[in-house]
């Protein structure tokens, strides 16, 4: 019996140790959960000075990692930032609170085009506020590709670039490319189409130097690779390191993402959360974050403050026609996810 007591005591101590990390729940604090390194820390400091609300930040790497944390209530966050398909999933599972637009006067700064695009995953824009937009495209070294004109996903299959192609290491992103090239919907659940795309990717594999998510820009920057797939936000960074680098959005269209602010149901301080979101929508703050990230900002008011050389760049601020060709990746049902995963393993096993 005594033994059990000891075990229980130890469990209790362990439990207490774990819980001190949970939260303190005082007024004047706000817990923010975001992708890593996703806003200028200066903007956060300014917010703290201006409102007296202390911001406690946590970061995650993938939306899939964030989801169970919110779902299981491991920690209560007041504000999260995550991507379109995840917002849709969280709305579906009733995990988000409606944003009160009365408390967001700065919402008027957001470009109506992106608000409209957001409706595809958040009808009526009730739960989310767009923060950053990214468009996937081809980055290439104009010296290394020579006289080949790069304007299609098909250029990633050009045997001339053998061992100089960098592809994303991600099922959906690679299938998006192959499906678009075949003229299919990037969110298809038709097995025949998925299989055809897999065959295409298998054909490409011997040409690929590396499947990588973050290092494409680095390999392009140091001239190790001639052509790769990156988000448009990586372009300025890479170009600064290597002036030979160009970015193009392929004519078959592409995927884009909208990362948005949202308030989880578990939020303990909705008023502060809205104050924070509103602050991030202010033109000056959005400009600061743009200068930090170089992704497409959906903030129209910030556009006016952004340096002209960036504003002109179609890679960063795509035209309406380009935007019309873009689509977000939708969450698939488990049966379709398993299909993609099965065929992806085949591609990888080749």
């Amino acid at each position, binding site marked *: 019996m005594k033994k059990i007591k000891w075990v229980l*005591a130890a469990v209790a101590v362990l439990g207490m140790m774990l819980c001190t990390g949970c939260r303190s729940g005082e007024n004047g604090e706000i817990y923010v959960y975001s992708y890593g390194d996703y806003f200028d820390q200066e903007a956060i400091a300014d917010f703290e000075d201006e409102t007296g609300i202390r911001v406690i930040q946590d970061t995650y790497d993938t939306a899939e990692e964030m989801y169970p944390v919110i779902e299981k209530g491991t920690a209560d966050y007041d504000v999260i930032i995550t991507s379109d398909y995840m917002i849709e999933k969280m709305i579906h599972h009733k995990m988000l609170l409606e944003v009160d637009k009365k408390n967001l006067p700065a919402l008027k700064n957001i470009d109506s085009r992106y608000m409209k695009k957001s409706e595809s995953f958040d009808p009526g824009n009730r739960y989310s506020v767009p923060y950053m937009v990214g468009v996937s495209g081809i980055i290439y070294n104009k010296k290394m590709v020579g006289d080949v004109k790069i304007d299609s996903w098909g250029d990633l299959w050009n045997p001339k670039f053998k061992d100089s192609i960098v592809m994303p290491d991600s099922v959906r992103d690679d299938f998006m490319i192959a499906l678009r090239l075949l003229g299919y919907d990037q969110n298809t659940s038709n097995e025949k189409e998925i299989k055809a795309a897999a065959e295409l990717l298998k054909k490409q594999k011997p040409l690929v130097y590396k499947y990588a998510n973050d290092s494409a820009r680095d390999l392009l920057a140091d001239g190790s690779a001639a052509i790769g797939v990156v988000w448009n936000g990586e372009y300025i960074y890479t170009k600064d390191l290597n002036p030979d680098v160009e970015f193009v959005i392929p004519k078959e269209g592409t995927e884009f993402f909208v990362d948005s602010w949202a308030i989880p149901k578990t939020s303990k301080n909705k008023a502060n959360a809205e104050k924070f979101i509103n602050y991030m929508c202010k033109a000056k703050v959005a400009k600061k974050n743009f200068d930090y990230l170089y992704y497409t900002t959906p903030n129209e008011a910030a556009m006016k403050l952004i340096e002209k050389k960036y504003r002109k760049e179609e890679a960063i601020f795509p035209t309406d026609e380009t935007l019309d060709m873009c689509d977000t990746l939708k969450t698939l049902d488990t049966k379709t996810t398993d299909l993609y995963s099965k065929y992806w393993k085949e591609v990888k096993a080749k």
Partner: protein
Amino acid sequence: MTFSKKWSAPFIVFVIAGTVIPILSIAYYGFTARGGGITLDNITAMFSANHMQALGLSLLLALVSTLVCLIVAFPMAIVLRDSKFGKQGFTIFVLILPMWMNFLLRTMAWQVLLERAGVINGILQALGLPRQEMMNTPGAVVLGMVYDFLPFMILPIYNAVMKIDSHLIEAAYDLGAGKAYMYRKVILPLCVPGIVSGITMVFIPALTTFVISNMLGGGKVNLIGNIIEQEFTVNSNWYLGSGLSLVMMVFIIISMVLLEKFDKTGEGTFI
């Protein structure tokens, strides 16, 4: 309750929280279908062509790297026994030194070395030699495995070699054994326990690694560890991931049992 029992409580908690609960939850997920209900599908999934191929490649690369580690470590241990430095433990200290650094960082360092525009190619180019293209091949993965796990092979063999009574060696020479015969009949058998634990400590992490293949294989070397990792992270299919992990555990238990047998016969015959 005795004093020692009292102090074992934290360890009981540790074992329960750190081993029993995780294994039970993996077993639970492994035998559960995604929609609920008991199933064996996650276990039998290991025998699908894609998974078998990845397992085969994992076995091959793990075997090769274990063998390379053994070939490097055994002579090294012998040399260390005879050298003055070896007795002072200085050389072994130098060998172990890199282990104090996180193995992720060490693997990342190989990325920097092997990359096309990396350090090695920089040196080769400066010397006017052709570039190496090892990055993102199975060879690079084996290199990473050998580098990361080599100390685990050296240490147990070194310990076994250092424990050999030099009188035994002298006796062998006195009885007319040549050098090669002595190594074969005295040193090698006495090292078997060290070799066996070295093999276990290299083979098992090499078999299940996914970090090394991710970092040095460029996403082109798909090991069973990568597949399991992908199931947990990207596909959010914890059920299949757990099922495959269970099969891997069985694999590891089998290889440990086999190796232990080897160990025992070695000890029984020669000591």
